């Protein structure tokens, strides 16, 4: 039997700027074909749902407070053809679902997100661990389509990029954040959290791409 993971394996920690009951949030249903961890970069897609990664190159970035498989998010959605519902441990729960305003469509898997335009400093586990992160490095995320190497990365990760001052088209991807702290001993923006998870720390920003 596989050893179960820990709740903090994937995390989002708003270490500064979090205003409790009045912070800027967006709540939406996770696209039915997608899944996200806590701390994943999310964006709004053409279906009105949220999905991990950038749905379009200039989508507004957000960071997921909830994972799509959290019990209060996924609830008892495991129902359908196949195994009898009785023997599915979570079927029949009303948690994580409700009816949309048309009173027919069932809304499921709604997650809350911090929007990049808010004034936060965030810590996330959802980034490309192979990259080198330094202070003030801009961060990008991955779009669903495209031919770049980064497109094969898990959607919802952020990665580092470079700004080239003075170029005619300095931005070919949307900047979603700026690295805010580096571990000087390691010379890296990747540090270990208290339970040994690798994390990066950044300020969310929104600087839309300017395509050539």
């Amino acid at each position: 039997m596989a050893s179960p993971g820990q709740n903090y394996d994937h995390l989002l920690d708003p270490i500064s700027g979090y205003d409790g009951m009045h912070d800027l949030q967006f709540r939406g249903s996770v696209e039915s074909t997608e899944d996200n961890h806590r701390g994943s970069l999310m964006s709004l897609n053409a279906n009105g749902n949220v999905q991990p990664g950038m749905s379009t190159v200039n989508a507004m970035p957000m960071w997921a407070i909830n994972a799509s498989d959290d019990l209060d998010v996924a609830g008892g959605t495991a129902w359908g053809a196949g195994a009898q519902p009785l023997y599915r441990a979570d079927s029949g729960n009303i948690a994580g679902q409700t009816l949309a305003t048309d009173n027919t469509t069932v809304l499921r898997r709604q997650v809350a997100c911090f929007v990049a335009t808010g004034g936060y400093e965030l810590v996330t586990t959802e980034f490309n661990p192979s990259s080198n992160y330094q202070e003030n490095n801009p961060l990008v995320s991955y779009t669903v389509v495209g031919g770049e190497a980064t497109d094969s990365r898990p959607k919802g990760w952020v990665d580092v990029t470079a700004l080239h001052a003075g170029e005619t088209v300095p931005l070919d991807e949307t900047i979603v954040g700026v690295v805010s702290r580096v571990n000087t001993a390691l010379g890296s923006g990747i540090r270990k959290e208290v339970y040994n998870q690798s994390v990066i720390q950044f300020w969310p920003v929104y600087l839309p791409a300017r395509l050539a």
Partner: protein
Amino acid sequence: MLNADVRSRNENVINSLRSDDPMISKEAQEGVNDYLRLRAREDGFARRIQPPIPVTPADLDRQVDTVKPVIVKDVEPDTPAAYGVPFGAVPMNHYIDAPRYRVMFDRVMSHRFIADVANLLTYDMDIRQIFNDLMLKDILAEEDRKYMAVVNTVVGPQYEGTNTNNQAAVNPRVDEVGAVGNITVGPMSRASLAHSMKGLPSTNRHLNPAVGLINNITIWDIVALDRTEIGGDLAEELFRNGFAERQVMGLRWFITIKTDLVPTNVVYHFAAPKQLGDFYTFEDVTVSTKHENYLWEMFCYEMIGATVKNSGGCCRSEFINPASVEWDDIA
């Protein structure tokens, strides 16, 4: 221009609202309260079908891989059938086991209502208390929406006799309980009403319905049943007084105004709560209010966990043509 008395009363209301003393705050409810009602609202029917049970942290079960609160419950076990044997035969073994499931919790909340207290002063009605009541009903309405989202999943797609919704490949309920859960029974009559009652007994769990859920439009089709169908005394009583809460065909009938959740011509039947599922309130509806300088705000929230776990515990009948089909007409 505002009447001086009214203004004085509203100042008292606002002062009461802004007080930290719960006794003084209570006085706000006794202020001016006359206003034009535009819409009927009601309490939730989910809580009547499955009466809530308050739980405490001691009732919660811990999980290793999540910090989310859950309650783990056991399900009545099933057993292989007994059998006749020749003399000298010994019994076959069957290992004792039983299913269990998780009741999950999530939060239901209202919007946060916010206003400048100066603006609140200009209302004649006790607007805090009114919003308080509306928020509570909005919370209960959301409970009903969540509940019916699951109920509609459990009963499955409607079988009309000509489509394939009686096939297990289309409708998992068919395979599990040996009957469809959502059929057309023809126009309202004594016979079609009785046919709708067969929905739960037709499953392999043989439950009896305990509650009928119907909207406040369809109920008039029952009132319209004449003396040849329901007897002279009852027909006269319904004609004179309408359908006050009463037992018909041995059921308690819950009449809802939520026609968006319980459509016209539709009746849902539910088994008794112990055979149906769960409804736990970890944190029942709580009103949070806050005033800071001249801004005042309030919202409601609750934390509940509920299930419709027994898919043989509810069914749906629609009183329309096409004509009645059988509950156990499964493919």
